């Protein structure tokens, strides 16, 4: 141990209680920053995982879709989307990055339940996809959040008649009883009667059309049947039958009240009828999120090269909620970090100021012996830095212990926008930047805080310091 380190270390031990209190403030700062930072990091990873599982990393749309397409999905389909997918799949740069490449079809329309005693209809937002691709997408868990979902066997590529509805939509269409949903009240009789009498003639026509389509498709009817009405790309009304295989809760109430998931083929049949089937989007789920910018750049270049009028959006564009949550938690983390930084700053300034006052005579003696002012400054700065290092080390150790306890406690929570609980974890180890950043930030704050009294010590007049009692 160098002589200066020996002096520094012994001076810290000289006022054990004071050093302990200051070190505790630093440790508390490190603990708070690491635990909250770890928690926030896990939230970000969880949200990103959920978002990427549902929307992929990147989605290719026909230009203008993002701004105007959701109101008219049929009018913004990608022509010859299979060729575009082939182009992407065959690209040597993109191919190794891609985990899943799959088309989707969005649509809007009216869903009706006209079976048995119920007569109810409701506008819906529909999403058509290839079930096996969606199951593969839901296995994606790059950040090991434990959010990988088991394959959903209710939908299959082979049976395009099956679909899932949001819990709220199921309730409004009177599907609670047929689907045996718990916590789902039956539809009031008045609503049913009113709907029944008002739309009887039209309903009968829709049922007839849907039954004809179902027979043509040769689809077996397993669950309760819905009739879906939508305008085709040409503007004509079209109707298909959907056999409801179950519900899929959505985290946002508005979506839950309108959501229908179905096989891509059924969605295309509804939107394009017997015309050319297009796709609203081509979803790319990458193996690693860090490849997103490179993949995006490559897609842009590829589309430009082939004269394709397509645009690319990432999961953040499609899900602004993700960006909002990231901004909010980043802001809270920054605020907590600043508060902790200020506490550490004042604690260290206070301690080092008292140390300088108590050791004024000693400073005078050392300076008289020939120590330079810079040497005195460095000694006190080193003491502050050492307190910072020790405090942060204890805080980090405590944060690791608490994080391990939380991660092994089996706690769960429902993140905003989610419908299902996810494990509650504090991801300290998965974020070396957080640990290094916290450590560096607090040590720097402690060092800077020590610099103020250290500078005062260095500037003391030797004579005045020697006179000090």
């Amino acid at each position, binding site marked *: 141990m160098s002589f200066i380190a020996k*002096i520094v270390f*012994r001076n810290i031990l000289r006022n054990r209680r004071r050093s302990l209190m200051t070190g505790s403030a630093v440790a508390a700062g490190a603990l708070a920053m690491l635990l909250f930072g770890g928690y926030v990091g896990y939230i970000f990873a969880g949200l990103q995982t959920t978002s990427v599982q549902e929307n992929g990393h990147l989605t290719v749309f026909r230009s203008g879709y993002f701004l105007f397409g959701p109101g008219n999905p049929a009018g913004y389909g990608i022509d010859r989307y299979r060729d575009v997918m082939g182009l992407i799949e065959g690209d040597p740069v993109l191919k190794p990055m891609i985990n899943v490449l799959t088309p989707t079809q969005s649509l809007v329309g009216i869903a009706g339940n006209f079976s048995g005693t119920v007569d109810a209809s409701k506008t819906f937002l529909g999403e058509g996809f290839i079930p096996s691709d969606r199951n593969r997408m839901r296995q994606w868990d790059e950040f090991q959040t434990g959010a990988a979902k088991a394959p959903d066997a209710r939908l299959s590529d082979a049976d395009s008649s099956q679909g899932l509805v949001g819990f709220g939509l199921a309730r409004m269409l009177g599907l609670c009883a047929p689907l045996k949903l718990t916590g789902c009240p039956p539809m009031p009789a008045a609503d049913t009667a009113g709907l029944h009498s008002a739309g009887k003639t039209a309903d009968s026509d829709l049922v007839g059309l849907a039954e004809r389509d179902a027979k043509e498709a040769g689809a077996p009817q397993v669950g309760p049947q819905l009739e879906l009405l939508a305008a085709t790309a040409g503007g004509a009304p079209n109707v298909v039958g959907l056999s409801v295989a179950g519900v899929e809760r959505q985290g946002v109430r508005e979506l839950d009240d309108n959501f229908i998931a179905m096989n891509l083929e059924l969605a295309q049949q509804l939107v394009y009828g017997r015309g050319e089937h297009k796709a609203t989007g081509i979803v790319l789920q990458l193996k690693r999120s860090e490849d997103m910018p490179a993949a995006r750049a490559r897609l842009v270049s590829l589309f430009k090269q082939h004269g394709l009028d397509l645009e690319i959006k990432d999961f953040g564009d499609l899900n602004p909620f993700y960006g909002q949550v990231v901004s909010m938690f980043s802001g809270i983390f920054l605020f907590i970090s600043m508060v902790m930084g200020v506490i550490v700053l004042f604690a260290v300034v206070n301690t080092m100021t008292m140390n300088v006052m108590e050791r004024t005579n*000693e400073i005078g003696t050392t300076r008289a*012996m*020939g120590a*330079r*002012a810079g040497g005195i400054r460095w000694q006190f700065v080193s003491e502050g830095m050492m307190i910072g290092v020790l405090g942060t080390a204890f805080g980090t150790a405590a944060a690791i212990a608490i994080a391990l306890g939380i991660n092994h406690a089996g706690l769960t929570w429902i993140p905003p926008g989610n419908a299902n609980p996810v494990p509650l974890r504090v991801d300290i180890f998965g974020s070396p930047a957080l640990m290094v950043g916290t450590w560096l930030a607090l040590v720097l704050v402690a060092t800077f805080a020590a610099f103020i009294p250290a500078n005062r010590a260095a500037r003391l007049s*030797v004579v005045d310091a020697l006179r000090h009692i």
Partner: protein
Amino acid sequence: MIATPNTAAAPAPLPSLGASQAAVRLHRVARTYRVGAIEVQALKDVSLQVPYHRFSTLIGASGSGKTTLLNLVGCIDAATSGAVEVCGQDVADLDADEVADFRARNIGFIFQNFSLVPVLSAYENVEYPLLLVGIKAAERRRRTLEMLDAVGLAAQARQRPNELSGGQKQRVAIARALVKRPQVVLADEPTANLDSATGASILKLMRQVQTESRTTFIFASHDPQLISHADEIFTIRDGEIVEHRTGATP
């Protein structure tokens, strides 16, 4: 110590402050402090020379300017006017770091209250000045042990100052002042905090090491014992040197 009498009517011609045989030369030095609105003139137009290898004493009442004079010679304070030359170096020519380095190499201090670094052992306190002048570890160890042995504290090398008696602390302070082999050792009331027997032994020790090392010692003291051992005795009153006489070994 050779005093140059101050005569207000006919000031002495300005002597050259170049290379000289004097360890310390002060020429028309004044030091004024400001205490609030009051200006206190601690030293008034002092001129003196202290030869090398002498055991010299500054005597005077409290507040007479002894400590101020030692501070100027020790280069820890600056004169308001006049010139201070220590070991042939005009200290006004040096910047702050150079003055610190000059002190580290050439001047040793012994304080009334010992002023040992409490977190360091006796050995480390003595070793500290050698670190400041960049002496290598092996040589540091050799000189530190030799110095502790010389002051009779080899057995207490590992003890901290709070485990030592007043006399032992002052012995450590003497060892610390001498270990770097300075040209000048300044001691401000070195026996004031010691009982008479301990003071006598410390004085004897200082005289002995001064004789052996031929270091220039300058004391500020009231202690009659110390004065009786001095080669040069200098009396200061109200900031002025009023008497110089030769002592024990003229």
